[in-house]
């Protein structure tokens, strides 16, 4: 049974006369406690998709359903982790998490809130930096703080919007492991947006490519039939991993090529014009012959 569902969803922007459809006819069913990765090129509408799932961006047509009920707006039951952390810069890590805890659980006493904050901050291994402000943290630490804030809402669905794309490779793999660890000990439904095939194959149960925008839609899915926990060190020898990786990569490359061919007809040939030389004739003798005008050569 599907827990989170997109039913014929389209999202369009712009004034009525000149609407651009970013996403069209999206259908997606995510089962409870399933880890789904949506993979796509940048600019294909990935963030719009996650915003639609979270309720920040209402669909133009179709509907988003969670546990059978229509989603009408954002809420703490769908924890959204932003691509650029979105920590409040005037609050420390603990205070950022506490703000989320207090709004998700308004009945908790002060001590209970503090306990919960400490729990989630420890979970992402930030307890040594709980009193630091975001600008004092590295990118990885900020993303961990953002993860702690999202988790502290105790959401039924985790929506991860390219959570690791701004990080360096080492920090990235460390955080991937952390997210997987947390997910495996405390299962819940996850939709992750990514542009990294390796990351998708390593983490997800299913991988769904998003075709090129505008008017992007979801393509045929790839099921990842690999046992968990997956060990990144032996993964490169895993035949299934290698197969999936090459299949998805070639599928994505194909998508890219297709979209380029689609737009190829729109290329406008530039007029063949050379800039005229307006420089004043020089009276003094020059030591070097004047260089060719740079643009005329090009």
């Amino acid at each position, binding site marked *: 049974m599907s827990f989170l569902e997109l039913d014929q969803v389209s999202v369009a922007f712009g004034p009525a006369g000149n609407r651009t459809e970013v996403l069209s006819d999206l259908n997606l069913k995510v089962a409870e406690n399933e880890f789904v990765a949506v993979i796509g090129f940048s600019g294909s509408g990935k963030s719009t998709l996650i915003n639609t799932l979270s309720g*920040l961006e209402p669909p133009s047509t179709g509907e988003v359903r969670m546990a059978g009920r229509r989603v009408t*707006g954002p809420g*703490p039951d*769908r924890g959204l982790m932003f691509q650029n952390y*979105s920590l*409040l810069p005037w*609050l420390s890590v603990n205070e950022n998490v506490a703000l*989320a805890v207090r709004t*998700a659980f308004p009945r908790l006493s002060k001590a209970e809130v503090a306990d919960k904050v400490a729990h989630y901050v420890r979970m992402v291994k930030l307890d040594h930096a709980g009193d630091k402000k975001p600008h004092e943290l590295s990118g990885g630490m900020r993303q961990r703080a953002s993860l702690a804030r999202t988790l502290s809402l105790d959401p039924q669905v985790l929506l991860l919007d390219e959570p690791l794309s701004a990080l360096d490779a080492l920090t990235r793999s460390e955080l991937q492991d952390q997210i997987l660890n947390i997910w495996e000990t405390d299962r819940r439904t996850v939709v992750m947006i990514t542009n990294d095939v390796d990351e998708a194959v390593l983490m997800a149960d299913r991988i769904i490519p998003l075709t090129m925008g505008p008017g992007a839609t979801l393509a045929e899915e790839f099921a990842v039939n690999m046992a968990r926990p997956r060990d990144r060190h032996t993964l490169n020898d895993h035949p299934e991993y290698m197969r999936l990786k090459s299949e998805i990569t070639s599928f994505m490359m194909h998508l890219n090529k297709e979209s380029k061919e689609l737009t190829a007809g729109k290329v406008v040939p530039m007029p063949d014009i050379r800039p005229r030389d307006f420089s004043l004739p020089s009276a003094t003798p020059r030591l070097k012959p004047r260089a060719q005008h740079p643009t005329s050569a090009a």
Partner: protein
Amino acid sequence: MADSSIKDKIKYALLKGIDVSGFKVLDPPVRLAFGEEPQKQVRDIAKYMVLPILFVLACLGIWTVMGPNHKTKSGEVPTPAKILTAYEDNKRFDERQEEKASDFIVEGAEREATLAEAEAELARLEAEAARLGELSDEIAAAAKEQMDARIAPLRSELESLKAKHGELEDQREAEMTALAGKVAEKQAEPAELVAMVREHEKIEDAEGATEDVIESRIDEILANPPEEVKEAQMAANRVADEVQHYKKRIAILTNENRNVKEAEYLEKIAKDEAELAAATEPKKVIREAKSIARNAERAESATTQTYPRTATIFWQTKRSLATVFVGFLIAAALAIPIGIMCGLNRIVMACLTPIISIFRPVSPVVWLLIFQIIIGAFFPDPEKHPLFVSLNQDKWFGWLPNPVAFLQTNPAMIFSACTVAMCALWPALVNTALGVSSIDKDHMNVAKVLRLGFWSRLFKIVIPSSLPLVFAGLRISLGVGWMVLIAAEALSSSDGLGKFVWDEYQNGSSQSFANIILACFVVGIIGFFLDRIMIFLQRLVSFDDGSATA
């Protein structure tokens, strides 16, 4: 190890304090004191401390040299040394007010002691004044002799020149008369006579000019007595002033002191009471009773009286600060809520934009006049208005000392503050609106995901994130307010530094010019510190190292 880490902590605490307060120039000396890269610090001190100080000293030097060369109607431009003297004199003036005020209320044995002291001091000062007066006269006499010696040859030269010119003139007159006779007899051409008259006038002018040269030399000598004469005169005047002050003090201590007055009235009451007891006629009895009642009232009012001080520059400064503070608070209290509403809601912004656009460029002078009329209508009889009565009474509820009594609040202060508020409003308002409307969209998304209500969205997201810009606006507002206030006070004669400057300009004593320049420095230095305070607050509320709003 532990020792050095404590040292490091102190060092970094100091550097942090310097950074937050914005006195970056003190950074190298602190680092030098802790022995960090001494060569670099010495170089930095030379570049950023020694050179600027030398530059300022050079400016003062140019001022000292150039100032006296420019003669104005209010005397020559005072040198920095004279400004310093003006400061000293203003300080002494303020102290005298303080002494007289305390003489006015001192009582009992203490009064006697103070009186004795003052009398002894007066005797000493009178002797001193006599000595200095004589000295000054001697010096003046000597200088006069010297000047006379210098003038005498010029005078005699002028005399002889005048005599010679007179003779020559008589000669020419005679020639002209002779020629005129011939013209009358038609023996000569009239044109010849006209030419002669013109020639005569030219010569006369030339002779007058040579006389003038000598006369102006004499005047110059007379107008510039030697420096030591002026100095001796000033020293004598200063002591004479002091003598006057002590005479006044003694008068206060013996007669005007409020306790002395009260005792006088009480004595009268006792006398009246005795007469009343002895009186037999009803008419006389009622007269005595009336007199007792009147004197009792006088005695009572005498006990609460204070000495009517004359305004000094220090008091005017305090009053200006109070006024600008009140105006600034009004401006902030209006600008921040309105700015937040404008930033949150585009309709509110659209409604207020025409009002802001039209009123922002209006000159403070216009606001001053408008508020003067409006505020004046609120307080037809300010002396008795409860607001001013309560603000100016000595004690609240009969026991709580009133900390603002010394300001002597009046409607002028209120409308000056309103003018300040009206002009200081706009930068804070516009900046607040900008800060609120330019909140990071991601932060608003966080608020949406957390489903924060309006108020927690306002207090947890909107206000904290716009605070740095709000404070940047408030800083500009305070600067504008301080500038506007001085002008408003000068124009409206509301007590404060502006009025001080205006009064000095109007009364034109020998020290006025120096006092005006002194006030200029006071205004500047206070404005500087107000700005520093705002920078400090701004850095406290900024969350990204203060770099974005520095």
